[in-house]
């Protein structure tokens, strides 16, 4: 790929990709599921090359749009093969490129829309649903081009689907992941004032983070009840979920999320400690290890002697 990129002739590069696709089209479905994805990735790389190498931003947008539309076609073709899972992943990759490289909100939204449609209509089983949703949430978290209304729709869809996964532990983990959709990372120091046009400030919605985490707790609770009714409550999986949720609370506490106050965290610590005191939990090595390393992590934070340590100092283990 080296010499091709150095030529900077992105139009010709694009023509080559189109020619390759024409040939690959003759390969039939068994080959297409293997040949189309690399083409799409080559095109994604091209989008970045175009954006970075074209001084005229209007021209760059036009060229990026053309390539992204082509990628849309490739992903749609993959979905028809049928190779829904790969197509969904490609839509997400393209959404990310449209958002973060090309800063084209409508196109990025379209890609997410297609990903969700595939999720609803074509993802074969619960395991594949979990993977697809993990990817959707992971990519959506990193997209900064969406204005509030579009973003809300996508986030709402993602959280809704997360809470409807079949197995309660999957639901719980997915909802915890969704909490991050309300808490984006702050841009790196160097970006400063030179934020590109169309990039939105990072979302930092402390209240909705809390809503997600509380929902996760509710799911863990109901998982506990479900097992108590069916299997006489010997299972420690729900407690594993409580410890995991506690770890998410800690993540946000360290990040300075105002909804996670010391008293909120302390209550959860006590809840988890109570659960852990149960005989079955004490016999579960994996659970004990997770719980103890969580406590150890808190102890390490306390000892750091910095600003964060101050916050941790009032927590009682």
């Amino acid at each position, binding site marked *: 790929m080296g010499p091709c990129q150095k030529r900077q002739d992105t139009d010709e590069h694009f023509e080559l990709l189109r020619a390759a696709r024409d040939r690959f089209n003759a390969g039939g479905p068994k080959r297409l599921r293997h040949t189309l994805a690399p083409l799409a990735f080559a095109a994604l790389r091209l989008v970045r090359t175009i954006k970075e190498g074209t001084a005229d931003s209007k021209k760059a947008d036009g060229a990026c749009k053309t390539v992204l539309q082509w990628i849309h076609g490739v992903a749609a073709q993959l979905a028809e093969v049928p190779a829904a899972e790969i197509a969904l992943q490609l839509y997400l990759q393209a959404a990310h490129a449209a958002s973060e490289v090309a800063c084209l909100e409508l196109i990025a939204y379209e890609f997410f829309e297609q990903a969700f449609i595939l999720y609803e209509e074509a993802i074969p089983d619960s395991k594949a649903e979990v993977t697809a949703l*993990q990817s959707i949430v992971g990519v959506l978290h990193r997209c900064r081009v969406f204005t509030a209304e579009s973003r809300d729709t996508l986030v709402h869809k993602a959280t809704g689907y997360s809470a409807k996964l079949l197995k309660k532990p999957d639901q719980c983990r997915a909802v915890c992941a969704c909490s991050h959709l309300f808490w984006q990372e702050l841009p790196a120091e160097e970006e400063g004032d030179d934020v590109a046009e169309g990039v939105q400030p990072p979302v930092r919605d402390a209240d909705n983070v809390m809503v997600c985490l509380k929902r996760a707790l509710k799911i863990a609770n109901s998982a506990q009840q479900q097992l108590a009714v069916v299997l006489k409550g010997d299972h420690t999986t729900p407690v594993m979920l409580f410890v995991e949720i506690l770890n998410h609370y800690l993540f946000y506490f360290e990040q300075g999320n105002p909804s996670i106050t010391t008293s909120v965290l302390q209550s959860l610590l006590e809840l988890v400690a109570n659960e852990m005191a149960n005989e079955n939990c004490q016999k579960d090595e994996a659970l004990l290890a997770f719980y103890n390393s969580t406590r150890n992590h808190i102890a*390490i934070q306390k000892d750091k002697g910095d600003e964060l340590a101050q916050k941790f100092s009032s927590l009682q283990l």
Partner: protein
Amino acid sequence: MQAPGKIHYILSPGNLCSQEVLEYFKSVCSNTHITKGDFDDNPSFQDNEVLELGDFRIGVCHGHQVVPSGDTDALALLQRRLNVDILVSGHTHEFMAMQHEDRILINPGSATGAFSSLTPSAHPSFVLMDIDGSKASVYLYNLIEEEVRVEKMEFTKAASKLL
């Protein structure tokens, strides 16, 4: 390195993307621990793998499950959940090896320098790890502009406290 028997285990966070790559790995070493990446469709790959080598518990996970992607604290959360001393993860194609609290996080990057929207200028990289009891020597291989650079890091597992 490719002589038979030199490599005892292959740990790969995933996104092999094709059967041929898996077969290549198996030809180097039959003891492979590969987790499922977002572009893998091999049904035998799991989301997480944990194995014990020397005094170390080593976890492998692709990392597309971790939000925010590549975030140290989020990876550490997974590390605590799997209860592993060393977590090998991927997804970001950003090469990284660091000590975090009393454990180690490694991202071997992309062996082919494949494109990733997370790390636009990923270069080919991989990691060789030598485990001897409680000591792990990690050799970091990077191909940067046609030159192979090798760095070494060493970690010793402290005696466990609460575990």
